[in-house]
């Protein structure tokens, strides 16, 4: 089963909850974004509580939780945006 590494980014309050802004996460090639979030949520229950308001992106595009992740992908978890 091929293993791949994704770059994982957290922003805003999620960054403060997880304690890092950037991490590298090894997963099975093609695994869903959901699996990455679950990994961090297991370590950080407060992050899990924000699940319903978090939006994910893959390679700078908003992505559904089912989106498969491949080698070199950049996955980010974004709290509700508040620019302007």
């Amino acid at each position: 089963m091929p293993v791949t590494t994704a770059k994982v980014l957290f922003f805003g309050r999620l960054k403060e909850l997880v304690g890092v802004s950037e991490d590298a996460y090894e997963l099975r090639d093609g695994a869903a974004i959901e699996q990455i979030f679950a990994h961090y949520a297991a370590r950080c229950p407060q992050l899990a509580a924000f699940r319903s308001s978090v939006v994910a992106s893959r390679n700078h595009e908003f992505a559904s939780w089912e989106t498969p992740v491949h080698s070199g992908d950049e996955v980010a978890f974004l709290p509700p945006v508040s620019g302007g």
Partner: protein
Amino acid sequence: MSEADNSSNDRVELTRSRIVAESYISHVRTPADGAIVAFDGCVRNHSHGRRTLYLEYEAYEPMALEKMREISVQLHEKFAIDRVAVVHRLGRLEIGETSVFIAVSAAHRAPAFEACRWAIDTLKRTVPIWKKEFFEDGAVWAEGELPPPPGAAPSVKSAS
């Protein structure tokens, strides 16, 4: 002209320096225009009844720039406009300073007004930028807006 040509004169930026509005207004001003509409979003001294001391903005910078460029391209598709300038500031901002500035030029005023309004409403919903509000007794991340689900066309709900 092609759509790419239409947006190729636009100016889309993130900056950590003070925003000089005149620079962006000048950028969109051409002899073909009869109207320029600008939106100046600035730092308010209160939020939900509390006195705000200052704000800090952070962005997922490469994605934010891509989303801002998408807005400028969409503006040309939706409205009969000439040029667009959009800039958002990051880092610490003091009360009264400009956090976001948008200028749109057009031959006629109606599309300039409509495009400028659509641009700021869409930016506030789709561009990954976050605001932290600092008060005398602590700091909070601003209540934000959820971007549209992947694949959905951006739409505008009532502005907050």
